[in-house]
C-alpha cells in the first residue's frame, strides 16, 4: 500500500483528495451513500453569516464538457450550520474545511468569529472568488489589495488555518497568490469557476437568469492546471489544486504541477462516488509505479 497521506504543514490529510465546495452539500447529505471517512477532507458549501436563498432560476446550463452555474450561494447561515451540521460531521474522521463567504470584510470576520468557538473544523477556505455574487461587480479575488485586506483581517481573528481560494478571472494569478501569502494565508486553493456566458439561440436570451455564471468541469482542467503550476512555482505556502478533476490521472497532473492536495468538484454531481474513485485510482497508480509515498511526486514536473 502506498502512503497517500499529505502534510500541508498546518493540516495533515489521510489522502490528497478533498470534496470541493458547493458540489458536496454540507457533507452529510452523501453520508448514506459514501464512506466519508475515506476522504482526505470535505469543503462544505459556501457559508455566509445569515441564511440566503441564492439566485433566481435557471441557475445552471451545460457547456461542452463543462457546466456554467449561477447558483448564487444559497445556504443555511452560521447558526444552523453549527447546530445542525457540525456536531454530526464531527463523527467522521476526515478534515472538515468550511468555505467562508462574505459581502464585506466584516462579514468574513463575523463568520470566522462565530465558528472559532465551535469544535470540529480543521481550517477555513476563504471564498474570495465567487463570480456569482455582486459586490459592486467586484470580488476581492480580482484585486491584490482587496485580497490582502480581507485575508489579513480574517487571519487576525481566526483561531484556525486559512486557505485562500483564488479566482481564475484575473490577468496575473501569481500576484494575487503572493498577496494572500503576504497577508498571512496558510495555504492557497485554486481555481474557482471561470466567468462565462451561455446563450439560447431560439429566445436570444442568456440561459442563466443571472446572465453570467461560472464554468467548471473537464473543460477548464488545462487552464486550471496552468494556473496551479504558476502559483505553486511562486509561493511558499502549500497549494491545493482543482478544476475539472474526475479521475486519478487528473489528480496526478495537479500534484505533479505542484499541488499538495486536490479538490474534486463538478464530478460529484455526475457521480456521487467520484471522490472515492479518484482516491482508488491514485492508489492504483502509485502501486503500479512503485511509489511508496504520494508526497514524493508533488511538484515533480520536469521542464
Amino acid at each position: 500500500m502506498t502512503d497517500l497521506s499529505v502534510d500541508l504543514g498546518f493540516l495533515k490529510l489521510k489522502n490528497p483528495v478533498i470534496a470541493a465546495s458547493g458540489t458536496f452539500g454540507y457533507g452529510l447529505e452523501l453520508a448514506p451513500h459514501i464512506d466519508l471517512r475515506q476522504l482526505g477532507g470535505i469543503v462544505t458549501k459556501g457559508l455566509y453569516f445569515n441564511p440566503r436563498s441564492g439566485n433566481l432560476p435557471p441557475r445552471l446550463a451545460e457547456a461542452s464538457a463543462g457546466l456554467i452555474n449561477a447558483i448564487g450561494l444559497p445556504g443555511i447561515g452560521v447558526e444552523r450550520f453549527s447546530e445542525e451540521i457540525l456536531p454530526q460531521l464531527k463523527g467522521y474522521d476526515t478534515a472538515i474545511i468550511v468555505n467562508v463567504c462574505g459581502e464585506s470584510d466584516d462579514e468574513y470576520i463575523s463568520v470566522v468569529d462565530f465558528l472559532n468557538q465551535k469544535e470540529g473544523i480543521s481550517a477555513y477556505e476563504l471564498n474570495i472568488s465567487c463570480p456569482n455574487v455582486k459586490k459592486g461587480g467586484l470580488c476581492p479575488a480580482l484585486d491584490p489589495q482587496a485580497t490582502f485586506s480581507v485575508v489579513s483581517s480574517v487571519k487576525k481573528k481566526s483561531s484556525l488555518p486559512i486557505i485562500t481560494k483564488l479566482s481564475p478571472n484575473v490577468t496575473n494569478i501569481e500576484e494575487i497568490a503572493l498577496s494572500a501569502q503576504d497577508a498571512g494565508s496558510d495555504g492557497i486553493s485554486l481555481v474557482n469557476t471561470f466567468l462565462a456566458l451561455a446563450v439560447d439561440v431560439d429566445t436570444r436570451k442568456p440561459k442563466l437568469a443571472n446572465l453570467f455564471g461560472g464554468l467548471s468541469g473537464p473543460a477548464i482542467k488545462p487552464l486550471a492546471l496552468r494556473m496551479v503550476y504558476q502559483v505553486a512555482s511562486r509561493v511558499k505556502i502549500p497549494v491545493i489544486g482543482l478544476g475539472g478533476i474526475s479521475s486519478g490521472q487528473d489528480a496526478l497532473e495537479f500534484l505533479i504541477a505542484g499541488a499538495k492536495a486536490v479538490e474534486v468538484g463538478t464530478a460529484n454531481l455526475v457521480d456521487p462516488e467520484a471522490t472515492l474513485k479518484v482516491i482508488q485510482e491514485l492508489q492504483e497508480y502509485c502501486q503500479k509505479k512503485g511509489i511508496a509515498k504520494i508526497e514524493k511526486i508533488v511538484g515533480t514536473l520536469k521542464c
Partner: protein
Amino acid sequence: MLPKDGLSGIFVREISQDMIKDSQALITEKESWKEYYLLSLKSPGIAQQAKPGQFIMVRIDPQPYPLLRRPFSIHSKDEENIEIFFQKTGSGTALLAQKEINDSLDILGPLGKGYKVDPGFKGKTVIMVGGGRGIAPLYFLAQELATLGAEVKIFYGAKSLSDLCLKDKFERNDFKLFYSTEDGSLGFKGLVSDFLAEKLPSLAPEFMYSCGPEAMMEKIAQIAMEKEIPAEFSLESIMGCGFGICWSCVRRIRQEGQETWLKICEEGPVFSKEQIIW
C-alpha cells in the same frame, strides 16, 4: 438575488437510502416512433424500489460529453426492469436515442418523491392527463392504481395521431382512454385541457394527476381548482445532479401556507395544485 423570505425552504437532508447507482443497466428492449423512444433497462435494485412519479438520472456517455446526467421519469417497471420513454429534444437525448439493445447505461435512482398512491382509491375514479412525452410517468402510475382497484381514466393528448405512440400500449391494459389531437387526426380536436373540461362533469374523479407541458398543466390545475378536485403535477427543472447537492433545480413552492424555494429533485418533482405557483 431571490427575495429574502422563504428561507425555511432550505432543507439539508441526507440523500434517500433508496438511491442506487447502477453503472451497468443493460438495455434489453428498444422501440422508437418518430422522435420518441422507449428503452427497457435491466436494473433489479432500482426496479424494486421505484414508485410512480419518481425518476432516474441517466449518464448518456462515460466520456465528459454530455457531462451531466439527464432526468427521465420511470415509465414502468417489473421485478427486474424499468422503462423510460423519451423524446429527442436536444443533443443528449439524440445520443441516447442511438443506444441499442445490449448497450449498458450508468443510471442513478429512484429519485424524488412520487405521486400519491392511496389504497383508498379502490373503486374510485382517478383521472390522468398526459401531454406529449408527459405521458411517460402516467403509465406506471396507472398500472399501480389499477392494481389497487381504482377506475383509471386517461386523457392522452398530442399534436397528432403519430405522436400518440403509446396508444397501443395503453390499450393493452384495462384503462379508459380519451384521446385528443391538435390537428384532429384522432379523438377530440384541440387541447387536452379543453377536452378534460368538457368531460369532467360526467366523470366525478376522486383525484387527478398530470404531467406534460407547463401551459397544459396550468390549465388543468385551474380546472382542478374550480371543481375542487385534489390534483398532483410533475414539474421539470434543469437538474445538475438530481439528488440534492447542487441546488440548481429550485422553484418557488407553497408549503404550509408559505412560499419557499424548494429543490425539485428532492422535494418533488410531484407537487399538489395548492403548492405550485404557475
